[in-house]
């Protein structure tokens, strides 16, 4: 296994009075895709939001490339090289596709440098460059959300449920895009669709009731149908 780019140790997060993450330990090796799996309500989205500082961590450590993140404000965490593709995409509906990408620029020239790549990866975005986000289809919005996280020079991408609510053919396009991404980025992927996660990820980590219950190589999990059925339900 290569060096860990992101490491969570004993992370506890509360939302109101609810203790959601109960001592999560997680390692994300550099240059690979790690899938964060689990049933609904297991704490997957909370884990990503805690990493981004959108939920404050009550205790534990989040270390990214050797530096602690848990006390930093969200914008500083992002500036360290973390891109976030949230559940439900969160694209800016009244902004054009181009403006949605422009806002993600952290250094002058980021967008100019990234644009040819992004348009090659998602040709629809070039075609609808001037169209407002709200007029895009679900698949195009997902592509825009992923592209937006790739504008700045991020080293780690946190992707939350990219296949949610999308038609199978669009899911295929998203899988292709994420596969290409893997060549120059580390990805922590939250995905309910086990087939998609299995097709993409090198490693996995299963959460249950706010705790990590299993982690390892995806290749091993794929062949262990009894384990997947026990931990993830029918897949």
């Amino acid at each position, binding site marked *: 296994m290569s060096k860990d780019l992101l490491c969570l140790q004993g992370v506890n997060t509360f939302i109101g009075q609810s203790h959601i993450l109960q001592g999560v330990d997680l390692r994300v090796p550099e240059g690979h895709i790690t899938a964060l799996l689990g049933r609904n309500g297991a704490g997957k989205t909370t884990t990503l939001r805690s990493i981004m500082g959108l939920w404050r961590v009550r205790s534990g450590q989040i270390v990214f490339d050797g530096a602690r993140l848990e006390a930093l404000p969200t*914008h500083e965490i992002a500036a360290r090289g973390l891109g976030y593709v949230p559940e439900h995409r*969160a694209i800016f509906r009244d*902004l054009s596709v181009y403006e949605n990408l422009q806002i993600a620029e952290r250094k002058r020239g980021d967008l100019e440098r990234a644009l040819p790549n992004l348009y090659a990866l998602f040709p629809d975005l070039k075609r609808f460059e001037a169209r407002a986000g709200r007029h895009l289809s679900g698949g195009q919005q997902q592509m825009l959300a992923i592209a937006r996280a790739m504008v700045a020079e991020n080293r780690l991408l946190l992707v939350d449920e990219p296949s949610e609510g999308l038609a199978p053919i669009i899911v295929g396009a998203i899988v292709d895009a994420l596969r290409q991404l893997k060549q120059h980025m580390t990805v922590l992927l939250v995905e309910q669709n086990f087939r998609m996660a299995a097709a993409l990820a090198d490693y996995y980590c299963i959460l249950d009731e706010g705790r990590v219950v299993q982690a390892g190589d995806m290749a091993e999990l794929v062949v262990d149908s009894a384990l997947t059925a026990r931990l993830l339900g029918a897949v």
Partner: protein
Amino acid sequence: MTQIFRMWMAKQRATVVTLLIVALAVMALFARFEAKVAVSVLLSGLTLGAIYFLVSSGLSLIFGLMDVLNFAHGLLFMAGAYLGYAFYASGFGQALDSNLRFAIAILVGGASGALLGAIMEWALIRPLYKRPIYQVLLTLGLTFVGTEIIKAIWGTIGYFMNIPAFFNANTPNCPSPSLFDFLSDHCSSILILGRPFPSYRLFVILFGVLAFAGMMILLQKTRIGIIIRAGVQDAEMVQALGVNVRRVFTGVFALGTGLAGMGGVIAAPIIGVNLAMGQEFLLQGFIAVVIGGMGSLVGATAGALLLGLARAIGDQLVLGGLQLPWMEQAISLSLSIARASTVLIMALVLLLRPSGLFGKKD
């Protein structure tokens, strides 16, 4: 073709409705009064609308981005007027040419509004972002405290700020026969369809138009504008893209309150500088924002324009009485009814379209 028209209508419905209301008001005005009176009333409405815009645009931006109902906005409008006046009447100000003195007074009003707004957001409102009720109480409380401070410094009497010399000549050639002539004789009024209209009020309209254009350019054509528009929709996501949203919040708050402060100085030669001006314009500003739709700059502009026109038409009806075709005698109206007309418009808009003409937020 029909499909395209339908899509265009769906997109531009609010603009079409606003233009329709304005067109109806203008037609009614021209039907009831002589053309020269109607134009004069129209321009008075636009003057008031421009001042309302300077208050409502900031209120709307602040609510749109931060969900803060800033009840202290009227205080900052008033504080801008008082501080601008303080400079205008100071020894340093008196030594300057009246035009330059007035221009600097506008900058002083704007800068003091922006500075006070930034301090208020940073020190007092920021800790209360998750407690909207507390924000309302705080900003209301600040209004009372601020008004008392102004009272302690400047007393309870009002002040009058002279119209700068550029708009205040009274030579035998006055009023100026046209706008073109005004540029050389600087008369206090200009003949419009044979009826004199104060030239300073035309400047107020121009100032409002320029402020609107500046805000639109800022919001549509600059990176900070994109950030503000995105922040209005989803501030959390903007933050997750590496933008320091807190700093943007402070900047927008300062921009909004700065415009209000400037508006106070701009309004001073018309309404004077007094302790009631803050409350009066805050109320009208809020009504304009509610009519236009919370969080929309175009909506705030439309709301301000409609309110200005309603007030001007109402005031004219107070002077001339309301004469309907079946009446032998015109009904005389009180000034309070003219004032209430703006609230009636708001009630009507809320009944028909609760989120306002251009609003997306409830």
